[in-house]
């Protein structure tokens, strides 16, 4: 396949749907909460009952505008809604309310980094629309003959983000979606939970001979419900299209579903002109006006975004790009690190601890940083005990684990377990003398010029003090005693 990938170039564009974090639905006051009993969050509007009228949720507009601005889009002063007509049992109105020829925002971009150089991926548009309900095809006694429909999700506000066909491989698509998700999470416009369907991704995939200008015929690949599936499905689809072309065939424009079990994309049975939605302007909604003042008010709520934060971490804490990437991978982690750095007064130590012990333990315990038993100020206290020499680095690790297990403070654990570092010279001198007496061979080697053997002797003292001796003090005392 490698040789063929030198001959063909994949071209990918993504359509990403994100559920906006509102309390109520796009056009009615029903709750958007996930996981409620079926059909317990419906009303005449989202059931599509005759005569019910939609009224647009102001918060959904704000979140859409916020995302648009963060994605460098131009927000239209006046946008409009249209009806996208199609028939499916989980779409009770018989049409989806969406934005068609007047989307909320257009002409944006985000920069991604895939294999070194940054690359700009264009965002064609971001528009608002409402979601359909959920069809359940399996799991009931009569599932062979009946589909079950739950309309709790019907009318949930979505932002659809469409990219330009700017990605040239599954890695770039994966990287784009990672960056996009990171930005949306920082903005708090969506929880981007892929399992619950808050973030859904479809891809338009085509291949063309390298150097060709004209795009190949594309297939739309749906059902990419995790980052892993996205990559697998794109790789499969790219290989499939190349194989078709290589064997002299042609690609048909069609919709294909990624089948995880079979690890392949499968064409959906679709009629020739199934994609005629007969769009027309939604007569029940007024044009959506977002004036300059409101837009700028929303812009002011945009926090420092991940890319800017990475740059700042690199510049102000002198950390590597990799470390800055880890520490800004979520807003909560970045916040935790900055708080720990501030309270400990040692950003370098805080960075190492957060990336190592903190994230490691959280990962093992299956916890998020928001639920960490060790708060950022508590970690700061521990780091201060270490940097002041009150406890050794080894003891600090032990204390951290205890803090993680019990939620108690560092000082408290150190005091109750008498873990404070022994810097008392008289006490240490006695142990040093014992170690020297017990290690005649190493003492002889040292005196014979092999001074590195002192490491062994320090180790013996540390062992005798259960790691509580101050290593620097031990080193000095040993040298003095041996000379």
């Amino acid at each position, binding site marked *: 396949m490698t040789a063929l990938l030198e001959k063909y170039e994949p071209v990918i564009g993504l359509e990403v749907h994100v559920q906006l974090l*509102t*309390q*109520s639905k796009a056009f*009615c*006051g*029903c*709750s958007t909460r996930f996981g409620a*009993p*079926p*059909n*317990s969050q*419906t*009303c*005449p509007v989202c*059931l599509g*009952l005759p005569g019910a009228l939609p*009224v*647009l*949720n*102001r918060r*959904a507009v704000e979140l859409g505008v916020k995302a648009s601005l963060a994605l460098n889009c131009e927000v239209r002063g*006046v946008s*409009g809604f249209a009806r996208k*007509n199609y*028939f*499916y*049992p989980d779409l009770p109105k018989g049409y989806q309310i969406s934005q068609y020829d007047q989307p909320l925002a257009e002409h944006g971009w985000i920069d991604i980094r895939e294999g070194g150089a940054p690359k700009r991926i264009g965002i064609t548009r971001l528009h608002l629309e409402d979601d359909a309900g959920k*069809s*359940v*095809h399996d799991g*009931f006694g*009569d*599932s*062979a*003959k*009946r*589909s*079950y*429909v*739950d*309309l709790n999700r019907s009318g949930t506000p979505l932002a659809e983000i469409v990219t330009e066909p700017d990605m040239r491989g599954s890695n770039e698509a994966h990287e784009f979606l990672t960056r996009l998700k990171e930005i949306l999470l920082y903005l708090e416009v969506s929880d981007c939970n892929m399992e619950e369907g808050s973030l859904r991704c479809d891809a338009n995939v085509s291949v063309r001979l390298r150097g060709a200008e004209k795009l190949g015929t594309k297939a739309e690949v749906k059902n990419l419900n995790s980052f892993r599936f996205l990559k697998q499905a794109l790789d499969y689809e790219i290989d499939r299209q190349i194989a078709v072309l290589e064997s002299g065939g042609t690609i048909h424009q069609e919709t294909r579903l990624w089948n995880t079990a079979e690890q392949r994309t499968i064409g*959906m*049975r*679709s*009629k020739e*002109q*199934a994609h005629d939605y*007969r769009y*027309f*302007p*939604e*007569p029940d*909604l*007024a*044009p*959506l*006006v*977002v*004036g300059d003042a*409101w837009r700028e008010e929303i812009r002011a709520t945009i926090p420092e975004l991940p890319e800017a934060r990475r740059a700042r971490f690199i510049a102000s804490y002198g950390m590597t790009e990799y470390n800055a990437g880890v520490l800004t991978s979520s807003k909560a982690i970045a916040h935790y690190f900055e708080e720990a750095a501030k309270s400990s007064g040692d950003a370098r130590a805080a960075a190492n601890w957060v990336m190592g012990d903190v994230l490691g333990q959280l990962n093992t315990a299956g916890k998020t940083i928001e639920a960490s038993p060790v708060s950022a100020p508590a970690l700061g206290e521990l780091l201060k005990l270490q940097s002041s020499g009150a406890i050794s680095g080894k003891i600090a690790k032990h204390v951290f684990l205890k803090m993680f297990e019990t939620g108690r403070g560092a000082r408290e654990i150190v005091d109750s377990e008498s873990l404070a570092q022994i810097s008392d010279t008289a006490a240490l001198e006695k142990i040093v003398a014992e170690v020297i007496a017990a290690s005649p061979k190493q003492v002889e080697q040292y005196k014979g010029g092999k001074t590195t053997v002192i490491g062994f002797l320090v180790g013996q003292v540390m062992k005798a003090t259960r790691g509580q001796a101050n290593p620097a003090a031990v080193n000095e005392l040993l040298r003095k005693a041996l000379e």
Partner: protein
Amino acid sequence: MRITDKDVSYVADLAHLDLTAEERARFGAQLDSILGYVEQLNELDTSSVAPMAQVLTAQRENETLREDKLRPCLPVDVALANAPESGAGHFKVPKVIER
């Protein structure tokens, strides 16, 4: 007649309607007369008028929006009351296969 049999079949197909030849002919003629009636509007010169789909012209941004507040939903049994078939809190429909 501007509406052809093919046009009628196409729209009927989008609407998931199975029409007989007799119905296609009848509805074709009706559609044709409706469109012919509306077409009279083309006598007016609207080249300098922006298309309008709403009598509520956009003046201020807030007047047609609602606050993000919850309102009571229908009880499940009421929501399902009009369904020809329901069960386990769901609407039940004949088995659906993606078209």
